[in-house]
């Protein structure tokens, strides 16, 4: 029975756990429930990936109504990779959250907090699992609404304005998406993604279809913080509670990239992309995004903010992969969705540990801290290497495929931009390493607050190192991920590149 309902349970189990968490008394019980659910989901998601990795597709009709009349879950390798990623990040974030959230959130709000956290998790999983475009919108809103509330729980009052700004831009994005869905619906009469794909092919030239596509893409671009629609992101990642920064940085934008891939190549098609300027636009915005966001990262005074700008740059890499619209390009995008979650999750966790100890995430407050917190420092160093894309780390694999895609199409300016982006990443990561290790601590700078310049508790370090080791593991053992990705790209229907 579990296998038959596998894909559905992955969403419904945390969904039913969320209201239960809201009813639990405050204390550690809601956290324990969330933790148990996230690990269960991780197992279910891994199981799901095993089923579809060879190209099988899981089809599940909700309510027993056959698509396109009912809503269906349709899981192929791409959904399964992203779902596994979301579940895995939740499973490592929650152990980490216990202490850091107890420090940041009022005790009497813990059960509400974990309930909302579970809802955010549900929303993201629901987006990845569904095969129905309107159902996707509904779950997108579940994840967004819960994210707004979670972000606003940050200790700095700017968390409130960050959440509000995100809410405005996110809702505009969702409304644009809704307009796009409406315009494609009027032309096709269906909401099922597969059915849409088939019914759109004969009418690819229609102007209404083009407009619908444009609105959907702009809507998703707002959600994934595609340059220049990224303005909400730095504030959100900087001021949200640490565990939420970790979780959102590693999952929310990645899921949005997945939606982009699914809509552009799964609902519309590669043929459609080739007759519109969409691919060139992706390349252009990707190149600008990589360079400008990386440059902006260098000039930040706050480490969380620097990592946020770095995220914008990394998302641009994924968009570049889509712009190539080739097997290599999409492989790079999908692999980078996965790898970036690992490296950014690790980096935000490490910075969060520093914040947990010294109560600040500004460069000047953490001078020389690397000596007192060697394990955290080492984690930042390795995750930083992965971010730059040094061979032997996960980050190298995605950069490698992106380069292959650029060389294959002889897109030299893009290749150059990728190199410059990596170079800039070296500079801003070095800035952090230098501050942590080589600068002397200025004693008078350290004022009041939680000042314990020593290594963090094990419950924070363990999840961090789990992610760091994953960065190394997926840099060396690439077979499973690349196999799943190959299957996913194959199902998206992108042919090999031809001149």
């Amino acid at each position: 029975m579990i296998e038959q309902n596998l894909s559905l349970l992955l969403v419904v189990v945390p969904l039913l756990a969320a209201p239960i968490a809201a009813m639990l008394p405050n204390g550690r019980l809601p956290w324990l429930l969330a933790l148990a659910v996230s690990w269960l989901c991780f197992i279910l998601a891994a199981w799901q990936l095993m089923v579809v990795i060879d190209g099988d597709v899981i089809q599940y009709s909700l309510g027993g109504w056959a698509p396109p009349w009912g809503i269906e879950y349709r899981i192929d390798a791409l959904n399964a990779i992203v779902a596994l990623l979301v579940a895995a990040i939740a499973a490592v974030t929650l152990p980490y959250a216990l202490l850091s959230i107890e420090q940041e959130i009022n005790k009497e709000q813990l059960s509400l907090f974990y309930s909302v956290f579970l809802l955010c998790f549900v929303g993201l999983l629901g987006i990845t699992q569904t095969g129905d475009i309107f159902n996707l919108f509904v779950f997108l809103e579940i994840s967004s609404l819960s994210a707004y509330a979670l972000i606003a729980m940050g200790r700095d009052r700017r968390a409130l304005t960050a959440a509000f700004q995100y809410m405005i831009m996110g809702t505009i994005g969702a409304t644009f998406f809704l307009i796009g869905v409406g315009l494609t619906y009027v032309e096709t009469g269906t909401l099922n993604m597969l059915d849409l794909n088939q019914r759109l092919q004969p009418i690819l030239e229609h102007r209404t279809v083009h407009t619908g596509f444009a609105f959907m893409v702009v809507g998703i671009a707002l959600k994934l913080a595609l340059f220049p629609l990224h303005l909400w992101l730095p504030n959100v990642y900087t001021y949200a509670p640490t565990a939420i920064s970790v979780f959102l940085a590693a999952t929310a934008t990645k899921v949005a990239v997945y939606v982009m891939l699914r809509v552009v190549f799964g609902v519309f098609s590669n043929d459609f992309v080739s007759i519109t300027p969409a691919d060139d636009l992706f390349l252009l915005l990707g190149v600008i995004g990589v360079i400008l966001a990386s440059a902006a990262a260098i000039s930040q005074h706050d480490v969380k903010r620097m990592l946020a700008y770095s995220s914008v740059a990394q998302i641009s890499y994924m968009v570049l992969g889509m712009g190539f619209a080739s097997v290599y390009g999409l492989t790079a995008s999908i692999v980078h969705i996965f790898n970036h979650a690992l490296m950014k999750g690790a980096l935000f966790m490490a910075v969060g540990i520093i914040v947990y100890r010294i109560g600040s995430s500004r460069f000047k407050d953490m001078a020389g801290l690397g000596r007192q917190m060697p394990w955290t420092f080492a984690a930042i160093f390795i995750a930083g290497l992965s971010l730059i894309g040094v061979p032997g780390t996960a980050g190298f694999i995605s950069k490698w495929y992106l380069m292959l895609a650029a060389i294959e199409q002889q897109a030299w300016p893009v290749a150059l931009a990728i190199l410059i982006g990596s170079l800039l990443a070296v500079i801003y990561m070095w800035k952090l390493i230098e501050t942590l290790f080589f600068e002397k601590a200025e004693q008078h700078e350290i004022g009041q607050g939680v000042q314990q310049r020593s290594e963090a508790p094990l419950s924070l370090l363990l999840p961090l190192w789990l992610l760091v080791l994953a960065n190394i593991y997926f840099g060396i053992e690439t077979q499973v991920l690349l196999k799943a990705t190959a299957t996913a790209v194959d199902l998206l229907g992108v042919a090999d590149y031809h001149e």
Partner: protein
Amino acid sequence: MIDTLIDITLMIFLAVTAFAIIRIRSLFVAIMLFSIFSLHSAGLFVVMDAADVAFTEAAVGAGISTVLMLVTMALTRTEKEKWSTHHAPLPLIVVLITGAVLVYGTYDIPAFGDPGSPAQVHVAPRYLEQSMGEVGVPNIVTAVLASYRGYDTFGEVTVIFTAGVGVLLLLSGRNNRYKRDRDASSGHLRGNSDET
């Protein structure tokens, strides 16, 4: 014909209301105008044979949303919006481009009310023709909502639940948690007023 006339009249009312909202500075008037906008669109939904939607829009837009906005206005003690002195051209440009793209998009759109348009001949006919036998509920909107697309409605309930829990999370914290910014803006924080 009479339908078309009512349709156009309501549409013009809506447009006037929408533009008045842009211009008006008083927040109270803007909120009341929104309520009117919502009620008019509920009327328009009735004209376009969407009774359930009209019912909901009237209850939610003209009811709940308006009440919440008014309460917020009262709580924040803001009656007028500040008229910003600089008028940036960017919003207008963005809006004009977006609108132009949309108008371009209506070129191939099937005519308003066309019974032969793709939306009317694919998927939907099954609901109209078979739901009585399959679900047995005369109100087809209920049949689709609760059964054919029941999972969407499950998501919808979850959205409401999320909003409830989220609002509670935001507004139940009574403590002043902005210790570090206190000096910068003392007096506006509730923690301070609690102490006095």
